[in-house]
């Protein structure tokens, strides 16, 4: 079914967020990546470049040599977020059109829903229970962000349909579905954050870092320091960077637990 037809149906049929999410099927195209080869506005954002100093292992190299992207790029999307033209360098590896599905695995409770990735299933369920919110677990997010940024018309359309109904629980979901991240919607969810925080902002939220800090400060959180430079590794990369973060940092990324960091969810509670 064509996207246009889907949207017409969605206009007349009362739909739930879970139904919308289950309709997400993206055709990943082989549209060429058009890096303009500026001197490298994005370059110091790239974890593999920062770790190695090697220009080949930077977006400038990846844009020229797709096979190196496949081998080394961490798909952190930092380059694309900071690029004035938002060039989607990580998607340069796409050799052919490929369909990726985002499917609803599980749903519980009522709107507004926290939308989480299947890898965080236990974390999101226990958190949703703690604060009494609904949740939706989706599958396929990770496959998706390896290949494509959220800056495409499909994601924007889905976001409109899901508006006011869903909030992203993890950075991956926020990035792929272009959805507000949990700390950006504390009021709507009836939640508060307490404490003085040394905050780690993960790669996929780098672009929203400023607004996230502002939101937290508005809620009375004291931000002692911010680290948005450290990448906690990606799913495919071979050049891993040992993060330079001590355990006093509180991360917005569920994956940070593996590095001994506290998570923001531990500081969020009901108003």
């Amino acid at each position: 079914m064509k996207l246009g037809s889907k949207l017409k149906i969605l206009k007349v049929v009362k739909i739930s967020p879970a139904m919308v999410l289950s309709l997400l099927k993206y055709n990943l195209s082989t549209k060429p990546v058009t890096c303009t080869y500026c001197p490298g506005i994005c370059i110091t954002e790239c974890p593999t470049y920062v770790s190695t100093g090697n220009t080949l292992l930077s977006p400038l190299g990846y844009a020229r040599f797709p096979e190196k992207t496949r081998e080394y790029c961490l798909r952190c999307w930092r380059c694309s977020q900071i690029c004035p033209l938002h060039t989607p360098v990580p998607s340069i590896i796409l050799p052919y059109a490929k369909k990726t599905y985002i499917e609803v695995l599980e749903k519980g409770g009522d709107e507004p829903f926290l939308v989480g990735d299947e890898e965080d299933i236990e974390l999101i369920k226990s958190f949703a229970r703690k604060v009494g919110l609904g949740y939706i677990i989706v599958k396929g997010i990770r496959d998706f962000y390896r290949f494509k940024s959220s800056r495409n018309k499909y994601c924007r359309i889905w976001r409109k349909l899901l508006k006011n109904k869903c909030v992203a629980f993890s950075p991956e979901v926020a990035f792929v579905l272009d959805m507000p991240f949990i700390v950006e919607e504390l009021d709507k969810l009836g939640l508060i954050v307490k404490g003085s925080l040394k905050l780690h902002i993960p790669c996929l939220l780098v672009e929203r870092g400023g607004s996230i800090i502002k939101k937290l400060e508005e809620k009375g959180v004291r931000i002692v320091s911010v680290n948005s430079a450290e990448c906690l590794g990606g799913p495919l990369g071979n050049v891993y960077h040992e993060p330079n973060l001590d355990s006093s940092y509180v991360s917005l990324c569920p994956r940070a637990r593996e590095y001994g960091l506290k998570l923001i969810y531990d500081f969020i509670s009901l108003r």
Partner: protein
Amino acid sequence: MEILVELKKIFGDRLSSSPEVLEMYSRDYWPYALLKQLRGKWTSRPLVVVWPETVEEVVEVVKLANRYRVPIVPYAGGSGVTGAAVCDKCIVVDVKRMNKVLEFSDEDLIVTAEAGIHLKKLEEYLNERGFTLRHIPQSYPEAVIGGLIATFSTGQFSTKYGGIEDILEAAEIVTPRGEVIWTKKSRAPRAALGPDLKHLIIGSEGMFGIVTKARLRILPLPPYVWMNSYSFSRFEDGLRAVRELMVRELTPAIARLYDISDSLLRFKKDTNLLLLIFEEYSEELLENIVKDARKTIRKYGGVEEGRNYVKKWLKTRFDVISEIKKTVVPLGLWYETIETAGYWSVLPRLYHEFREKVGKVKGVSAVLAHASHFYKTGGCIYFTLVFESKEEVYWRVWEKAVEVILDVGATLSHHHGIGLLRAKWIREELGEALEVLRAIKKALDPSNILNPGKWL
């Protein structure tokens, strides 16, 4: 080759001679090299790239290079625009893995770092502590400290805070023969112990030594900032207004005067546009300076245009080229930037003659200009050119530009440097001074190991 075996012993996997790496390190950001590379005509390739992590490793490479008579090109951010880091069959010594902050003193206002640290990373480190280098060139996102020193860099805040020569206190360098020296050992702001050797390394473009550490002066972040923009009916009225500000020490941190063409392209504003930012450590002082400055600008016909143009510039200031490239390259055009400087009496003629004569060169589509980096005695004019993407047009533009620049008594380069690009004209400006520099090079580097084949 035997030297590769020896290098491999030292560097292990911090060495590469893969074709992709050699291609990436075969040039800097010289538009001419980029144009040739896009057409598959860029054939220069280094022999090998190594990434040292200590000064001792740099010394070892230099000694090996001397023994085997293989040239070295030091490499940092690669954002130079003159081909100074281009090499063929050389060892590229990329210093970017030497990137630690070694010392920070808020009392002495000093930071010492290894030369491979990215400027952006160092500035962020300082900002977190309430300090700044106030050295923010357009290449800020990609530039590296060692490269900024070697290329005689300046930055957008130079009008108040100076260029790299004012910020660099001292540097550790590995000489072409492999000695390690500090240009100034003492922890003193001034030392009258003969010529300050830092001036030998600033602008040396990798020919007099490899910078491995830099001691730099820092400043507290200025807390009081004021900004505004002004339109002028004539470019030279804007210049006169800025001259009076400079002479009377109403010194802006940033002053950028765009001519109509440049203002149209960047701000969609059909006027000569002056952007001003003042910043001070005393609110009262800032208020008084601004009051006086506004009066001065009005005297020369400046009309207030508000803060939005300055805010737009602040937002886009590191990206002046991607918009141009996105629009002009598909049209079969190419681009170049030519920055020059002159005393106040030189600037109006320089501006008009350059625009007129270079604008008439066959194949040229646009000549945009803005004046920035002001001094008590004059300023820099930065021309952006768009022309047919043909090599012969590229060189025709340069021939005419150099003719105008030298004829009016301006300089061949205010801050981009010489490299391969300006090598053929350098004698015309330096005269016999070039021979003195050559004699120094010969004394320091008898085997001509460091970045040979450029302009010395």
